């Protein structure tokens, strides 16, 4: 019974995060300039990471935690590289 309640509450949280990802995707598609798209991409990967953390609570395993950590790490590197590209026109000088 309580496991059912937890499952549905976490599903609601995941749906909310999915809506947030849809909002970020809308801004990626529409965004007038490149910097808008990169901010939205940053928000998108953070939301994906949070969805994975909630998947970890749902299944009771810690595998998803490691995936979330890697998503966070690579997302940071990607956003920094894209911001650097906007600044200079090249990533590695």
């Amino acid at each position: 019974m309580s496991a059912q309640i937890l499952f549905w509450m976490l599903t609601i949280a995941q749906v909310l995060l999915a809506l947030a990802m849809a909002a970020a995707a809308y801004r990626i598609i529409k965004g007038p300039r490149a910097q808008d798209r990169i901010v939205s991409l940053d928000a998108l990967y953070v939301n994906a990471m949070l969805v994975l953390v909630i998947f970890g609570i749902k299944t009771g395993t810690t595998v998803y935690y490691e995936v979330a950590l890697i998503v966070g790490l690579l997302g940071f590197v990607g956003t920094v590289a894209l911001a650097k590209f906007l600044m200079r026109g090249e990533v590695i000088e």
Partner: protein
Amino acid sequence: MSAAELPLWLVIIVGALAIAGALLTLIGCLGLVRLNSFYDRIHAPTLGTSLGSGLIILASIVFFTVTGQRPSVHEMLIFLFVTLTTPVTLMLLARAALYRDRVENPEALGHRPVAVAVKPAAD
């Protein structure tokens, strides 16, 4: 861990924390859609990266601490990492956008066009 014997208070706390965090993240991303200029929009997703992820990760910590019967704080690593990296990326991005706007359309900054100083980096 048998899922059938979760205490009700734990379920309520974990679910409420997760939903609150997800709601905050959703509000932040709706700000991405609704706000008008880039310099407004860059503030919006920080709602999700600070308190939103904090609450969801707190839910994970509470859940695995109670069900595992030992302190489980490794999720704190994600929170620490997100908290440390978000200001860095957003500041880099804001500086890049400012640089581009100064060069390309200074009207977006609300400056007079005479105030534009295009100074390429010394490299």
